[in-house]
C-alpha cells in the first residue's frame, strides 16, 4: 500500500499558520486582537493538529501490518548540493506517532490552560497575543522536530524549539533576569546543537565514503544502510589522548557521542542541565509545555530515533546510561533543598529525564518512550497545578509561604495529589509502570558495565524523588498557610480553563499506565492489553530481550514501591509530623545543606572557569592587545608611519595628502608600467 500521506504536513502547518496570522496582525495592524479571538485561533491550531495526527495514526496502524507501519509526506527538496540532499519531508511511524500524540495532545491541553493563566496577566502591553504567537511557533517547531523525515528537518525543529524557548523564558522581558535566563537557555542549547551538527556531518560523510549512493541523512535509509559503516573507525587527533580507547574509536561511537551532546543540551543532562532550572523564569504554562512535557524530551526521542546507529555504539550507550543515572541522582538531591515550587519541579524534570536516558542507555528504548509519555502527563499536570497555586497565591512561588492550600483549592489539590502519587511510583499509576520498566531493564542489562550500580542509583533516585515530591505536597497543601492574611483572603480555586486540563491529565496520570502494563501484570491479572506500546514500537527500535523469572520481576517491583513509600514516609515525618526536624538538620549539617541548597555551585563554577576567562581573554588579549596594539598599532599604522617617515625625508613632493592625486598617480603608474612592459616586448 502507498505510504504517502500528504496530510502529515498539516500537522505542523496549523500552528505555523496561526502564529503567522496572529503575528502579522500585531506587526502591521499594531493593535491586539480581542482576547477571545486570539485564544480561539491559538487553541484551535494544536487541536486541529491533534485531530489530523489521530486520523493519520489510525490509518497507519490500521492499514499497515506491524513492521511496515509508516507514512511519509514529501513536500519538496529543501537543500540540495549533490550528493547531499535534504527533503522537507515528514515521517509518521510508531515512534513519531507516540511523540506527535503526546505533543499535540498535552500541547492542546496546555494551550487551553494558558487562556486562563495568561488572562490574569496584565504586566505588559500586547502580552496575551504575543504569548500565544510564541506558543504556536513552539508547537510548529516541536512538530517539525518530531515528524522530520531526516536529520536536517529534525534540526529545524531542534533549533526552532530552542528559539521559542528563548522567547518564552524571557517573555516578561522588562525584568532583565528573565531575559538573561532565556539567553542562557539558548546558548546552552546551542552547545548541544553543535554536537548534533557534528553528528550529522560524521554520519553523512561516513555513508558517502561507503559509497556515494548511500550518502543520505534520511532516517529510514540510514537505518537500512547502517551496516555499511558499522565497523568504521576514526583516528582521534593527538590532543584527545586522555580519552579511553585512544587512538582509534568506532565511528558510530563518535557520532553517537556527538549526537548525545546534542541530547544533553536539549534534555538538560549533566553537564548542560544548568539552563533548565533558570528556564522557570518563563510563565508557568511554558514550563509545563516546553520544560516538562515536550521540548526537553526531544533528546530522548532523538536517541531512540537513532537507535539503529547506537546499536553499533555500545560505548556511547554506556556513557548515556551513566550520564542519565548520575543526572537523575544529582538533580534529585538538589531538588530536596529548593524552596521555589517551580524550581523543585524543574530539578525533578532533570532527574526524570536522567531516568529516560538511563533507560535508553541500557537499551530499553520502549521503557524510555513509555516513561517519556507518562512523565509528560504527570509533570505537565504538576506544573500546571503549581501554576494554579501560584495564581491563587498571587504570584508567590516560595513554598515556605504556602501551606494548607488543600482547603482553598480542592480541584487543584486533588489533581496535584494524583500527579505526586504517579511520580512517586505508587501502583497502579502510570508512573509506577514506566519507572518499574526502566529499573527492570537496568537490572537486566548485563552488557552495560556496572549495571547493578546503575540499578542501585536508579532505585535510590526513585526514593529521593518520592521524598522531595511528598515534601512539596506537604509543604504546599497541608498544614497551615504561612503567608500574610492579605494573601490568604484572596486564595481561591481557578476558573474552568485552568482546572479542566488538570482533571484530564490527572486521569491519565492515574490510570493511563493501564493502557500498556508490562507482560508480568498482563499474565498475573489476565489483561489482554499487556505491553501494547512495546509491541507497537518494537519493529522500529531494537529491544533488549531478557529472560526473567516472574519472582524476580515481582521482587524488583516491590523494592521500587517500598523505596518510594519510604521516601513519602520520611517526607511525612519531616514536613508534616515533626516540622522542626528539617531546620535542625540544616543547622546541624550547615556546610552540606549549604552546598546542596546552592546547587553544588555549578553555575558559579561555570562562570568562574569558562565565562569570565573567555571574556577576559577576548577583551584584554584578543581585542586590546592583539587587535588594537599589535595588528593595528604596530602592524598597520606602524607600517604606514614608517612609509610616511620615509616619504617625508625622501619623497616629500608626493605627500599631498589628497586621495585624488594618489589615484591619479596610480593610474599614471599603471599606464607607465604597461607601456614599459609592452615596449619591452616590442609589440
Amino acid at each position, binding site marked *: 500500500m502507498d505510504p504517502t500521506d500528504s496530510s502529515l504536513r498539516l500537522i505542523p502547518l496549523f500552528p505555523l499558520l496561526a502564529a503567522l496570522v496572529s503575528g502579522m496582525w500585531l*506587526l*502591521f495592524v*499594531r493593535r491586539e486582537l480581542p482576547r477571545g479571538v486570539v485564544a480561539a485561533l491559538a487553541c484551535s491550531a494544536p487541536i486541529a493538529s491533534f485531530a489530523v495526527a489521530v486520523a493519520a495514526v489510525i490509518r497507519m496502524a490500521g492499514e499497515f501490518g506491524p513492521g511496515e507501519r509508516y507514512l511519509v509526506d514529501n513536500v*519538496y527538496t*529543501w*537543500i*540540495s*548540493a*549533490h550528493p*547531499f540532499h535534504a527533503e522537507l519531508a515528514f515521517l509518521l511511524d510508531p515512534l513519531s506517532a507516540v511523540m506527535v500524540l503526546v505533543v499535540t495532545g498535552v500541547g492542546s491541553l496546555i494551550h487551553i490552560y494558558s487562556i486562563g493563566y495568561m488572562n490574569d496577566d496584565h504586566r505588559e502591553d*500586547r502580552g496575551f497575543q504575543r504569548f500565544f504567537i510564541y506558543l504556536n511557533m513552539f508547537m510548529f517547531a516541536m512538530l517539525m522536530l518530531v515528524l522530520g523525515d531526516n536529520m536536517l528537518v529534525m534540526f*529545524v525543529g531542534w*533549533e*526552532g524549539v530552542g*528559539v521559542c524557548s*528563548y522567547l518564552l523564558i*524571557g517573555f516578561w*522581558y*522588562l*525584568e*532583565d533576569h*528573565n*531575559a538573561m535566563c532565556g*539567553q542562557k537557555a*539558548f*546558548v546552552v542549547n*546551542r*552547545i548541544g546543537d*553543535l554536537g548534533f*551538527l*557534528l553528528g550529522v*556531518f*560524521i554520519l*553523512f*560523510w561516513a555513508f*558517502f565514503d*561507503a559509497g*556515494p*549512493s548511500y550518502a543520505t541523512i534520511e532516517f529510514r535509509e540510514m537505518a*537500512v*544502510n547502517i551496516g*555499511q559503516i558499522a565497523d568504521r573507525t576514526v583516528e582521534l*587527533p593527538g590532543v584527545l589522548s586522555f580519552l579511553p580507547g585512544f587512538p582509534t574509536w568506532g565511528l558510530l561511537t563518535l557520532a553517537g557521542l556527538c549526537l548525545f551532546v546534542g541530547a544533553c543540551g536539549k534534555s538538560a543532562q549533566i553537564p548542560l542541565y544548568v539552563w533548565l532550572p533558570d528556564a522557570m523564569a518563563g510563565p508557568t504554562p511554558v514550563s509545563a509545555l516546553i520544560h516538562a512535557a515536550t521540548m526537553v524530551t526531544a533528546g530522548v526521542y532523538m536517541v531512540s530515533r537513532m537507535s539503529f546507529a547506537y546499536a553499533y555504539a555500545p560505548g556511547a550507550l554506556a556513557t548515556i546510561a551513566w550520564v542519565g543515572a548520575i543526572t537523575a541522582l544529582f538533580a534529585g538531591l538538589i531538588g530536596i533543598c529548593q524552596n521555589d515550587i517551580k524550581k523543585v519541579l524543574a530539578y525533578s524534570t532533570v532527574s526524570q529525564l536522567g531516568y529516560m536516558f538511563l533507560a535508553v542507555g541500557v537499551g530499553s528504548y520502549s521503557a524510555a518512550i513509555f516513561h517519556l509519555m507518562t512523565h509528560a502527563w504527570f509533570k505537565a499536570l504538576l506544573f500546571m497545578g503549581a501554576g494554579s497555586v501560584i495564581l491563587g497565591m498571587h504570584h508567590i512561588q516560595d513554598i515556605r509561604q504556602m501551606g494548607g492550600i488543600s482547603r482553598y483549592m480542592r480541584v487543584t489539590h486533588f489533581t496535584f495529589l494524583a500527579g505526586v502519587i504517579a511520580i512517586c511510583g505508587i501502583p497502579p499509576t502510570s508512573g509506577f509502570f514506566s519507572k518499574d520498566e526502566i529499573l527492570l531493564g537496568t537490572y537486566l542489562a548485563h552488557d552495560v558495565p556496572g549495571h547493578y550500580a546503575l540499578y542501585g542509583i536508579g532505585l535510590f533516585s526513585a526514593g529521593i524523588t518520592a521524598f522531595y515530591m511528598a515534601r512539596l505536597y506537604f509543604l504546599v497543601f497541608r498544614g497551615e498557610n504561612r503567608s500574610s492574611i492579605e494573601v490568604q483572603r484572596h486564595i481561591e480555586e481557578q476558573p474552568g480553563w485552568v482546572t479542566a486540563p488538570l482533571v484530564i491529565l490527572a486521569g491519565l496520570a492515574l490510570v493511563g499506565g493501564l493502557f500498556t502494563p508490562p507482560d508480568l501484570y498482563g499474565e498475573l491479572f489476565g489483561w489482554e492489553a499487556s505491553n501494547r506500546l512495546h509491541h507497537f514500537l518494537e519493529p522500529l527500535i531494537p529491544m533488549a530481550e531478557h529472560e526473567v523469572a516472574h519472582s524476580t520481576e515481582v521482587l524488583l517491583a516491590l523494592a521500587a514501591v517500598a523505596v518510594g513509600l519510604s521516601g513519602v514516609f520520611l517526607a511525612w515525618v519531616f514536613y508534616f509530623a515533626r516540622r522542626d526536624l528539617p531546620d535542625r538538620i540544616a543547622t546541624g549539617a550547615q556546610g552540606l545543606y549549604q552546598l546542596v541548597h546552592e546547587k553544588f555551585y555549578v553555575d558559579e563554577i561555570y562562570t568562574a572557569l569558562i565565562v569570565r576567562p*573567555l*571574556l577576559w581573554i*577576548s577583551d584584554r588579549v*584578543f*581585542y586590546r592587545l*592583539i*587587535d588594537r596594539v599589535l595588528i593595528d598599532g604596530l*602592524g*598597520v599604522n606602524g607600517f*604606514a608611519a614608517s612609509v610616511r617617515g620615509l616619504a617625508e625625508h625622501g619623497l616629500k613632493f608626493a605627500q599631498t595628502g589628497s*586621495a585624488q592625486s594618489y*589615484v591619479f598617480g*596610480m593610474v599614471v603608474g599603471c599606464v607607465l608600467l*604597461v607601456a614599459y*612592459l*609592452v615596449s619591452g616586448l616590442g*609589440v
Partner: protein
Amino acid sequence: MESIGSIADGYLLSTLIFLPLASCVVLWFLELLLRVFANGAGISEAFWKLYGVAVSLAGFLVSLEVWNRFDPASGQLQLVERVPWLANLGIHYYVGIDGISLLLVVLTTFLLPVILLASWSDIGVRVRQYVFFMLALQTGMLGAFLSLNLFLFYVFWEAMLVPMYFVIGIWGGARRIYATIKFFIYTMVGSLLMLIGILTLVYMHFQEFGVLTFDYIGFGGATGILDVPIAAWPEQDPWWSQRQVWLFLAFAFAFAIKVPMFPFHTWLPDAHVEAPTPGSAVLAGVLLKLGTYGFIRYAIPLFPEAAQACAPLMLTLAVVGIVYGALVALVQSDVKKLVAYSSVSHLGFVMLGLFAFNLQGIEGSVLQMVNHGISTGALFILIGMIYERRHVREISAFGGLAQVMPIYAVFFLIATMSSIGLPILNGFVGEFLILLGAFGTYPIFAAVATSGVLLGAVYMLWMVRRVFFGPVVHQANQRLVDLSLRERLVAVSLVIPMVWIGVYPASFLTPMDASVNALLARLRDRGAVLSDEVALDANPRGGQEIDLAGESEPLEKEPDA
C-alpha cells in the same frame, strides 16, 4: 540572431552596469542646464533622492531580466559582450555572467534601492553628491563582478574605492578622515600587489604563447589565460619556489584585505564605525563580497595548484578569523563595531567553504556571501534607524527598547536570528553547507569552526538583550517613536529574501550548480598534478567523482541484508 531584440540582448550587462552612473550624469546635466537657464533654481533634493531610488530600482529590474535570460543549465559565461578597448595591449571591454556572479549581481542591485530608501532622512547634507556617489558605487561594484578582462576588473576594482572613500569621508562620523584614508590606502596596497600579479601573469602568458591578452577566458578560438597551463607546476620543486604560489599570494593578499581575513581586518571596524548607515550597509552588504568573489573568480581558478597547496594556510586564517572575530565581537560596547567584527567571523565561514573545494562548501560559500549581505546589511540599516533617533551607538545607552519600539524589536530580532543561522532563515542554509563541505575535506577545521556558530549566538543575543530587554533605564529612550511606514517597508523587503533563501534555497542554489561544477572540474583536472605531500592527499573529497574513480562501488543501492 541579429534581430532587433538581440541588440538589447547584446548590451544587457552593459545596461546593467552603466545605468546607475549614466542616469546620474544625465540628471547632473539637467541640473546644470536648469541652473544656467532657470535663474539658478536646481532640482530639489527630494527629487534627487527619489531619482536615486528609482534608478537603482530600475537596475534591480534589469538584473531580474538578466536572471530571466540566464541559462542555469550551462556553466559557461553568458550574455558575454566583448568590445576592443586597447586591443593591441590585449585589453578589451569584456563582460559576462555565470551562476556565481549572477547571485552577487542581484544581491547588489537588490540592496542598493533598499539602502537608498533606508537613508532617506538620514543623509541631510549634500544630497546630490550622495546620490551620485552611491550610484557610481553601484556601477563600480557591478563592473567588478561582471568583468572578464583582468585589466577591466582592476579598473572597476579601484574605481569603486573612490565613491566609497567620499561616502565615508563626507557623511561619516568624527574620525571619518582617519577611517576612510585607512580604508583607501589599505585596499590600495593590496591592489597594487594584485596589479603586479596581473602584469606578471600577462607577461608570462605572452612569453609562452606570444599572445598578449588580459582576457579571463579565450574568446573566439584564441587562447586566454584560463585555457592554458600557465605557470605550470614542476613537481620536483617545493611549493615555495613555485611561481604559481607567489602569483596566488599576490592576488590573495589583495582579496584577503578586502574580505577581510584575519589579520588584515583592522580597517573594517574603523570604516564601519565611522561610515554613515548607507556606507556601512554597502560596505558589509556588497563590497566585502568582492574579496571573496575575487578568490572564487580569479585566485582559485587561475592558480589551482597553488590554491590547493595554500589551502591549509587559508583555512587556518579563515578558522582563526571565525573564532577570533566572534570573541572580539563579544566584548564590544559599540553596536556597529560588534557587527563589524561579526562580519570578520562570518566571512571566515565563507573562506572556509571556498577552500573546502567541494560542491557543498563552495555553494554554501556563495550563498553565504548573499546571506551575509542581506543579514548584515539589514543589521546596519536597522542600527542606522535607531542611530537616527538617538545619535548614539553604545549598547549601554539602550535597554528595554522592545517595549517602546516593539515593531523595530521584531525586525531586529529576525535579522539577528538570520545572522546567527537559525533554520528556515537564510543564514542556516549557507552555514550548514559550508560546514558540511568543510567537514568532508578538513574535519578538524570544520569542527573548530562550528564553535563560531555558538559564539555568534552568544554575542548577538547578549547585544539584543542589553539593547531590547530589561527595563527602560534612559529617559531619552522613553519617547522613541517606532518605525515609520517607509522604515517598515525597508525592513520587510529585507526580511523577504531572508525567509525565501531559508525556506526555498533551491531558487539560489540551482543557478550556480553548473558554474560551481565547472570550477570544481578545473580544480580536479589541475589538482591531479599535485604531489601527495601537498594538498590533495588531505583533500580526498575534492569532488565527488574523485572517490568514484578510486572505489568500485556500484551506483545502485544495495539493500542491506
